[in-house]
Structures are given as C-alpha cells and as structure tokens.
C-alpha cells in the first residue's frame, strides 16, 4: 500500500468526519448519530491490504479518532484520551481481515456488511476502556473523571455502526473505483472475486 496516499485519504476522512458528517447526523435516542468516514476507510483498507499494513493503518486511524474526540469531564472541561479508538480499530481490522475471505469482495453490499460487523466489535473495547478509565479515575479520586455512561454509549455506537454501514455502501463503491491509487498488493490475499 502506498502510505502517502493512505495519509492523504486519512486526512480527508478525518476532515469529512469533523466538517461534513454533521450534515448527515441524526438525533436518535437523545444522541447525535453520524457515520464515521475514518472507520469506513479503516475497513476498506483492512479488506484490501496485507494484514500487517491493515493493522498499522487501523492503529493510525484509531489514534486520529482518539485525538479528535474530546470527552466531557465533570468540571465543564474536556479531555482527550489516547488509546481506546486505536485499540478498537485494531480489533475491527483484525476481524475484517478474518472475514474478507468469506465475502464476495466486489459485491456492492460487502463494504456495508463488513463495516457494520467491524463496528459492532470495534466499539465494544472502546466502551470498555473508557469505562475502565472512568472507574480508575473515580477510585483514585482524580479530578479528570470522564462523564461516561456505558449503557447510553452501547446504544449510540450500535447506531453509529448501522449508519456507517449504510454510508459504507456508496463510499466503498467510490473507493473501489480509485483503489489503484492505493497500490494494494493482491498476491497472497485470500479474497474471493466475482
């Protein structure tokens, strides 16, 4: 994979998440749900590139999400927590790598399905790790306790997975058209093509 192209698309996906996703956001269950273009990019790369490159890119994309995701604190402040999304995206990439050999890669719905399934799994460790940080903060009496409610976030991230899966269908089509730019290596990859 060409890492320069990956960096450009990672930057664009992050900018889309920050600037454009609000156009697509919906208020559901008292929270704002919008598709994550960074996550869609991660699934796309995981579905097409060698495992090592997929894992590295997932960690990088997850770190970008971590660094642009402020978590509210109790004192009308916010904090950036490094790690949860990086680990969650890594898990999502590992799952996608396992699943990609079972799907028809060129089918229009494949990206949507992979994104939804990867999302359902990737966001679970994110929720767990943020809950862990909150608990450790409370037990240690720290002033940096994240205002985080796991039950609400479970519903929220499930809906994000669904919405990202829907958005991944057209996004995956576009990415497929420009896939030569990424320079994916196809040898040794167990993907089934129509």
């Amino acid at each position, binding site marked *: 994979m060409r890492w320069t192209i990956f960096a450009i698309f990672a*930057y*664009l996906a*992050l*900018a*889309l*998440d*920050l*600037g*454009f*996703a*609000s*156009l697509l*956001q919906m*208020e559901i269950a*008292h*929270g*704002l*749900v*919008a598709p*994550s273009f960074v996550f869609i990019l991660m699934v796309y790369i995981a579905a097409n590139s060698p*495992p*090592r490159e997929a*894992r590295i890119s997932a*960690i990088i994309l997850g770190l*970008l*999400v*971590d*660094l*642009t*995701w*402020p*978590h*509210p*604190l*109790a004192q*009308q*402040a*916010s*904090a*950036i*927590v*490094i*790690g*949860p*999304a*990086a*680990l969650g995206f*890594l898990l999502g990439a590992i799952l996608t790598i396992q699943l990609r050999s079972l799907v028809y890669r060129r089918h229009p719905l494949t990206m949507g399905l992979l994104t939804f399934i990867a999302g359902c799994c990737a966001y679970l460790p994110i929720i767990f*790790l943020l809950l*862990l*940080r909150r608990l*450790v903060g409370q037990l240690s009496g720290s002033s*940096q306790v994240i*205002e985080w409610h796991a039950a*609400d*976030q479970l519903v*929220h991230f499930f809906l*994000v997975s669904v919405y990202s899966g829907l958005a991944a269908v057209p996004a995956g089509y576009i990415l497929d058209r420009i896939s030569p730019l990424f320079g994916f290596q196809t040898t040794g990859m167990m993907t089934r093509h129509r």
Partner: protein
Amino acid sequence: MNNAATNRSHIILVVTLLASTLFLPAAIGNWFGARILELTVPVSAPLKRLVTSIRGAPEHVDGHSPQIEQMRVEIESLRVRNANLEARSAAMADQLERLQSLRAIDPTFFFVTASRVADPIHGGDPQFVVNVGSRHGVRQGTLAMHNGFQVVGLVTATTPRTATITPLTSKAVGEISAYVLPPDGDFAQAVPCTLRAGDDGTLIGEIGMDRAVSVGDRVILRDPHWSQLRTGPLIGSVMKLAPKDDAPLWNNIVVRSSIDLDEVAVVDLKVARVEPGDDQ
C-alpha cells in the same frame, strides 16, 4: 511460524502500549489533539461552511442586534441614574455600589466573533469547535453567545487557535444558575432557579409552587455582570410547568432554548476585558 510468532508479539506490544496510554494525563492528549485539530481545520472549515449553507443557520448580525442596542440604552440609563444617586445621602450606598459595578461594564464587552469549523462527532455529544482560541483571550468557561445575547454554551477546551464549545443543553455543562423573568421584565420579580440538561435538548429544574412563573416567561443566565438587565444573556423560555410527583409544593420547569443550537454557525465569545490595574 516465526513470522506468526513475531506478528503476535508485535501485536501484544502495541496493545500494551496503547492500553498504558489510556491513563496518561489529559493534558498530554489535549496537546496532541490540538495539533491534529489545527491541521484538519483548513479542510474541515470549508466543509462546515458548505454544510451550514445547505442546512441554513440563524442570521448573525455581528454584534449590532436590536437586543444589544437595547442593552446599551439600559446601561446608559443606569449611568444617568447612578450620577443622580451619588448626590444623595449615604443610605443609598448599597445600591450605589451595585450600580458602580454596572458602570464599569463596557457595553461591547469585548465580544470575539468565531465561526464553527468542526464537529467532533464520535462521542455523540453535540460539541463543536470554533476558530478562535487562547490567543484571542478565550479561556475555559468563556460564555459563547449568538448575536451577543442568546446563550449557546461554554468553552470547555482551548488551543491557541481553536476552542471547543459544549452547548448549554449538554449534560457535561452541569448545573446552570438562572432567573425566570416575569412578562414585564421587572428584574425585582425575577425568580432564581437552577437548571440542568434534560434528555431532549431542554433544560429542567424545580421551582416552588408559590412562585409567579408561567409558560412563556423568559429565562436568563445568572451572570453577575448582567444580572439587572432585562435583556441579559437569554437562555430561552419556559416551555412547561408541571407539579412534581414526589414533592407537591414544587413544580418541574422545562426551558427550551430560543434557537436550534445545532444550527448555530457563528458565535460571539464574551471575553473579559482586562485593563491594567483592574482588580480581577
């Protein structure tokens, strides 16, 4: 086999490293996050403007709204009243002292206008980022307003060039001190209350049943600099009053903001003007 074992050990190492970064102080994450945000703003800001042009936004009148003019007229009248009171006896000293503090307010109050450039959407909380930061005097806790009088939210994080604003209707803001004004705007009859974010973009609180509050009354923020102005920082209006089930002598009050906070594209940040020698 060796490759698989090597890969496995690398993955374990990476996972361990990332798990350890989970407990880093927030300042470290905030620093890196600020750099990433500033790098992304050149692309996310035009996208945000595109989104705003598609969805539409409440008109921003750049600090010259009728409500601001009304505030200036009120402050000027208070200044004239203060000059008259200074000539009267020492019995008026207490009210004079409060009026003196009002005289110290610069009506423009150093508003910094900022555009919404990014919406961190991952957590579902409706925060947004604007393109002014600590270099412009913005600090954590700075009030963000629309057209200079409608409260939008509070600044919860800053970088040198950006600030993250949490809307007043977000639970992260915590408790909000406010006044419910009667229909004639007589501040002497204002009812103090404490509000907190509800689940549906409203603010909820409790008020004694003996208080003269009705649906449609305006609710303003309890700001010590603006407390006696009818057109103080407006939160919204009373949408609903209903008796509490478990406390018959109290009413539940529901307040809704006068504007859709999600559609605000430009905000005015109320930055404290610090003059040399001021007692702050």
